[in-house]
């Protein structure tokens, strides 16, 4: 009787642990989704800062207008384009992982698994573009994952669901690490250029104000000065935003590793995982707020 009771308790405890792990993965999925959206938004703003800069200089009479005035410098940058695509793949992977962790029926599992296979293939390809020496996902690993997904069954056995996720996280990890590292490198290299571009926009507006202020009425001057203030704020916020984004990429890589370790090794506590994901989630939330502010402050 005691043995049966012990068995039931053990079963319940292991069930609880899997459920907690699945819940962590759903939080991770949401945080990565938000991070990916913020980062993509930042890259778009960054590229458009070149055009903003050109337009400001043309309007200030520093440069003649040309077709190139309206071309973002990063449009032709292979590294920039590959990083942007890789970021989207990362977001799709996290969404698929979250869907698998949240699946409650055999149909949900099938749907989530199809998304996951596609996402794994995308992160694998994109990581290879960011760093050609990155390890590839083997077809053998994908076969094992497919078997594990099938084993979850219509009743959605939680421990089997966790086992399938464990395999997915394990085989995706090298690609996730490569993409996060690539995003960090790309952001670090273009961050000062972005800030300079916004600085030039500010200077052009500043000079225009100096030239045109005399005939302006008080109220009009106030409006122009507020515009100048917004331009300085946009510059300051952009720098802080990109710094946070770089930190987030590192944080995402760390959280993914922690999840991988916790699923494979029971010595990693759920608290460790929660802390790592919490850090990522807090960054992702801050980035959302930053993005909203940048929208207001962009000249």
């Amino acid at each position, binding site marked *: 009787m005691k043995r049966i009771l012990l068995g039931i308790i053990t079963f319940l405890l292991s069930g609880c642990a899997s459920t907690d792990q699945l819940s962590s993965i759903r939080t991770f999925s949401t945080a990565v989704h938000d991070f990916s959206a913020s980062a993509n938004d930042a890259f778009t703003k960054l590229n458009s800062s070149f055009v903003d800069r050109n337009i400001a200089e043309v309007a200030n009479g520093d440069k003649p207008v040309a077709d190139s005035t309206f071309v973002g410098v990063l449009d032709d940058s*292979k590294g920039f384009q590959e990083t942007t695509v890789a970021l989207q793949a990362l977001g799709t992977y996290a969404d698929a992982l979250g869907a698998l962790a949240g699946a409650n029926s055999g149909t949900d599992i099938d749907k989530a698994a199809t998304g996951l296979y596609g996402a794994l293939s995308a992160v694998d390809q994109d990581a290879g573009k960011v760093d050609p020496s990155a390890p590839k996902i083997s077809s053998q690993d994908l076969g094992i994952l497919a078997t594990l997904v099938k084993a979850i069954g219509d009743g959605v056995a939680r421990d089997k669901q966790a086992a399938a996720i464990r395999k997915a996280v394990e085989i995706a990890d090298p690609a996730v690490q490569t993409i996060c590292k690539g995003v960090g490198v790309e952001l670090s*290299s*273009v961050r*000062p250029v972005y*800030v300079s571009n916004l600085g*030039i926009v500010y200077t052009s507006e500043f*000079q225009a104000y100096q030239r045109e202020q005399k005939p302006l009425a008080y109220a009009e001057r106030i409006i122009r000065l507020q515009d100048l203030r917004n331009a300085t704020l946009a510059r300051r916020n952009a720098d802080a935003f990109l710094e946070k984004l770089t930190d987030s990429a590192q944080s995402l890589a760390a959280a993914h590793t922690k999840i991988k370790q916790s699923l494979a090794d029971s010595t990693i506590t759920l608290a460790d995982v929660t802390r790592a994901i919490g850090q990522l989630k807090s960054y992702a939330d801050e980035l959302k707020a930053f993005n909203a502010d940048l929208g207001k402050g962009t000249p």
Partner: protein
Amino acid sequence: MNLLSLLSELIDALDVLIRAISDPLQQAQLVKLRECFEAMSDSAVHQLFDTTSQDFKDATIALGSATTAAKQGVSDVGKVASAINSAVTAANAVDKILGFLAHIA
């Protein structure tokens, strides 16, 4: 520090100097120089450099000196001419690794 960061630092310093001075001729010269560094920076985004070459080292030193000179020009109007000369020297040094001025000539 990488070339893009150094170019951006100089552009930022020139920007501050442009806003700080009132001589229209010096302002115009500085705006032209800033445009030149902007174009170099745009071009450098797409390139990889041999960071061990002497030309690269000379360019980074010249960019650092020009940034310092531009910052000094902000607090001392008498040093603006010297800042402009330093920026010209830096533009030529960077051009040695980018081949930028020859390309657009």
